[in-house]
């Protein structure tokens, strides 16, 4: 069934609010989350109640805690702590020598720093995790706790002393590893500076002698003066790559470029089918052609269940054109894998969760106008034949979530924009658009001429014209006034920083946008979200390194707290296992969260589940998996997400780690450390020490 009506100007029907009130309320309340948070609240309440005296005695307990901490540090030291930095350096040195060869300076620094920091993190967490699990059980085994426990210390001081001592060891270790890292990277940077200076001098000489037609790169000069280690502070924009963004129209039009690798993503939060018979997706795309060809336009559609990407269907559809508007319909082969089904007899809801569609176009000269349904636009896609009882206003069709995304071609974590096609010079090149918003309150330094600095970090993928230097057209303007602004051709310094100056008048724009396109046929530009940067004063490398080390330190402190807590009642092998499980689950947080929210691996579709209802083995399996999923759900709310501790997030990209990121890591550590400490205290409070 193909539904098009004259009144296509349908406002977005399904908001998140709708789903919260109409769909999700049919699902069970997340009692496990409530139970988990309740448990933590009880734990903290019990801690405050029972540890009241011990907390009070902390006011003069610093000497005792430090004494215990110092002793723990000695224990760790004599367990060959000093060998860790030596092992680390040897491993890193071998890896650096063996692996890092023939890379561009920025990549070289990134890889070297990755090796150093990764090895630090692994060795530190491994060593201190073990020591944390061992320290209290070993005191019990060797009975030294009898002597120590007979002195005027509280159990809380004992725990804190252990945690502080191991934290001091972590700090010491990191310091021992940070200094060689800093020195090593400084030496590397010195070499990079020298190489850049020699290259710049050589290029300048060649240019003066007319051997070279292109002036030496500013980026090379910058690297020769500053190196590549400086922690850059900059404002980065929101990147949007679309076939083209035409800001002249209001709202701006976006195009899906035919024949390119661009993909349109359309998200549906949920699809409530009225029955599982023939629900479908309808597409409507105004088409702009850049040639007079009348070749039919084909789109490739992939339908994916977001929570379970195993469930997907692919189809190629031909758009039927009428007055430059192409339409097509797609009927899923197995709707139950994508559409939720509400069984009115049992009152059960079988919901496979959110669904997304990807759309790409194979026809080279066609540009499909993508609309998101906002501002009285017609959405590009509808889900049709839905349950009128569960859609707003009893409608039987549904638009996807607004702001559909268009992703360009991705390679090595970068996106590419396609330059002019040598075979079709009439086709406009792709545009990467970076929106910076209002910068009037952002401090951005200006040079003597009143210009601000923009850095471009671009790579070039040369499909043809390999011998030509890469050039880009940069256009900076206020989105509210797309016809104004400045245009500038830029010589792209490949795999290096391209610096350029822009007038400060642009900074007063309400919504600054910088567009970038390749102008050399066959040259595709590769970029990331941060490839266009409005520069602020850099921070020293050593400070940025210290911030990264602090992230590792905080991760170690959290792991140590968990280890010490586990060691309060468990023997060291079991404590080690518990801590390891915590750490592994914490590193698989996204996977575990997905498992918990989808109720397992979702191998069976909702429809298949309905058919199996009442079969005894299915019922038993459902019960067991239900219990396990609930436990998993509770665990998700209790366990720390260790992936949040990302020490390499900024430094390997020569970017200064913002202080709020560090504060967030600190807050995250304390948020989990406190309940872990409370649990440890309650476990050891009345424990017999001898």
């Amino acid at each position, binding site marked *: 069934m193909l539904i098009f009506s004259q009144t296509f100007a349908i406002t977005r029907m399904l908001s998140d609010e709708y789903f919260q009130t109409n769909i999700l309320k049919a699902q069970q309340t997340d009692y496990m989350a409530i139970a988990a948070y309740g448990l933590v609240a009880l734990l903290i309440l019990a801690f405050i109640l029972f540890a009241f005296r011990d907390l009070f005695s902390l006011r003069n307990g610093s000497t005792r805690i430090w004494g215990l901490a110092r002793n723990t540090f000695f224990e760790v030291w004599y367990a060959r702590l000093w060998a860790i930095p030596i092992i680390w350096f040897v491993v890193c040195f071998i890896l650096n020598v063996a692996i890092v060869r023939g890379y561009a300076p920025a990549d070289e620094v990134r890889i070297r720093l990755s090796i150093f920091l990764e090895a630090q993190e692994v060795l530190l967490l491994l060593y201190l995790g073990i020591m944390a699990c061992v320290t209290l059980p070993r005191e019990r085994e060797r*009975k030294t706790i009898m002597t120590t426990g007979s*002195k005027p210390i509280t159990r809380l001081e004992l725990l804190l002393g252990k945690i502080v001592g191991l934290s001091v060891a972590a700090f010491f270790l990191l310091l021992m590893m940070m200094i060689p890292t800093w020195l090593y990277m400084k030496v590397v940077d010195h070499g990079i500076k020298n190489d850049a200076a020699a290259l710049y001098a050589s290029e300048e000489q060649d240019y003066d002698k007319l051997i070279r037609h292109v002036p030496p790169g500013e980026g090379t000069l910058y690297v020769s003066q500053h190196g590549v280690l400086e922690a850059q502070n900059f404002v980065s924009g929101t990147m949007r790559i679309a076939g083209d963004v035409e800001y002249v129209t209001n709202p701006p039009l976006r195009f899906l470029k035919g024949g390119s690798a661009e993909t349109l993503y359309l998200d549906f939060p949920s699809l409530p089918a009225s029955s599982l018979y023939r629900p479908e997706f309808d597409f409507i795309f105004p088409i702009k052609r850049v040639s007079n060809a009348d070749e039919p336009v084909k789109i490739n559609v992939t339908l994916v269940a977001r929570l379970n990407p195993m469930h997907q269907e692919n189809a190629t559809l031909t758009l039927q054109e009428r007055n430059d508007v192409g339409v097509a319909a797609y009927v899923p082969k197995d709707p139950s894998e994508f559409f939720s089904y509400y069984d009115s007899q049992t009152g059960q809801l079988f919901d496979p969760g959110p669904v997304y569609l990807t759309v790409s176009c194979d026809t080279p000269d066609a540009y499909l106008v993508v609309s998101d349904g906002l501002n009285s636009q017609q959405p590009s896609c509808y889900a049709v034949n839905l349950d009128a009882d569960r859609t707003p206003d009893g409608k039987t069709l549904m638009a996807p979530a607004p702001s559909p995304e268009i992703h360009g071609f991705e390679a090595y974590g970068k996106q590419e924009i396609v330059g002019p096609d040598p075979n079709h010079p009439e086709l406009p090149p792709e545009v990467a658009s970076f929106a910076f918003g209002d910068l009037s309150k952002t401090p951005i330094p200006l040079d003597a001429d009143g210009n601000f600095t923009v850095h471009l970090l671009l790579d070039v993928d040369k499909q043809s014209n390999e011998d030509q230097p890469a050039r880009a057209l940069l256009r900076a303007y206020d989105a509210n006034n797309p016809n104004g602004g400045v245009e500038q051709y830029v010589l792209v310094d490949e795999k290096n920083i391209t610096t350029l100056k822009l007038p400060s008048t642009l900074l007063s724009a309400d919504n600054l946008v910088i567009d970038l396109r390749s102008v050399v046929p066959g040259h595709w530009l590769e970029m990331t979200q941060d490839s266009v940067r409005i520069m602020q004063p850099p921070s020293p490398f050593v400070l940025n390194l210290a911030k990264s080390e602090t992230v590792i330190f905080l991760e170690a402190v959290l792991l140590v707290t968990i280890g010490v807590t586990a060691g309060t009642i468990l023997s060291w092998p079991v404590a080690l296992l518990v801590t390891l499980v915590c750490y592994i689950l914490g590193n698989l947080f996204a996977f575990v969260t997905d498992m918990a929210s989808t109720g397992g691996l979702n191998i069976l579709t909702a429809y298949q589940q309905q058919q199996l209802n009442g079969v005894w083995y299915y019922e038993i399996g459902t019960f067991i998996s239900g219990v396990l999923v609930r436990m998993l759900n509770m665990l998700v709310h209790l366990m720390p997400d260790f992936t949040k501790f990302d020490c390499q997030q900024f430094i390997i990209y020569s970017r200064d780690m913002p202080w709020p990121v560090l504060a967030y890591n600190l807050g995250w550590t304390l948020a989990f450390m406190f309940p872990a400490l409370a649990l440890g205290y309650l476990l050891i409070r009345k424990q017999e020490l001898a």
Partner: protein
Amino acid sequence: MVDQGLAIQTRQLTKVYPGFFRSQHVQALTQLSLNVQRGRIFGLLGPNGSGKTTTIKLLLGLINPTAGDALVMGQPAGDQETRRRIGYLPEESYLYRFLNAPQTLDFYARLFNMNRPQRRRAVDYYLDFVGLDPAVRRRRIGTYSKGQARRVALATALLNNPDLIIMDEPTSGLDPVGMLEIKKMISRLGEAGKTVLLSTHQLSDVEDVCDRVIILYRGRAQVEGALSDLLEQKDVFQFEARSVTEKLQEQIVELAKNNGAVDIHTGRPRVRLEDLFRQMIESKRQNEEPLVSSGSRL
């Protein structure tokens, strides 16, 4: 009711170690009621497994009683403030193997909130006090002999100048001279008004230094009282003299018989091996360099 004159007071103190799975529970202490006066040296006697160490652990709050209660220096056992006034010498020297002697004492001194000068003075004083050879002090305790470690453990027990010293087998691992020194030290502590709870199965130790004793067997108190009262044989008289000829000896025996004495034994007394050993070592030492240059020796 709390008696301020008592350093230790237990009422019906009971400890049962629960069994797990197939192992049976163990009744380590049964309804022990014990009063130890302040300033006394009190002996806790009994064979292995009689509940001596369990009693000490209960008094220190290291383990929890199954029933009954214990007051130490007028406060419940395990009270943090009270532990400031207690010194504890465990039956084995449970010390950190990776520290040397000054580091060990410094660590425990920190737990008593001593500041740096106090710690330094205490460490030097007590290492001298227990007679630890200065040559070994900087070595890690893991390399010490049992006797050397025992001295360090003793120093840690005395570090805070405690009012109550609890010693579990204090002479364990010491040579006879060391044992004698310990006993002398315990006597001196008693003279200084300290309360000492001495747990041992070395009866000679107790006999030499204790005022009162309690004898435990299988977790129950068998007998308690002043040592002099317990050991004195009130119907026996002992007479010792030098230069007694055989004739005089016969006359004394005859006189005793004539006056109704029975079970008369005469003979030459023997010195104890411990005394002989001590005399020999001390005479040798007089010709040697002193082991320590400052501080007091036991």
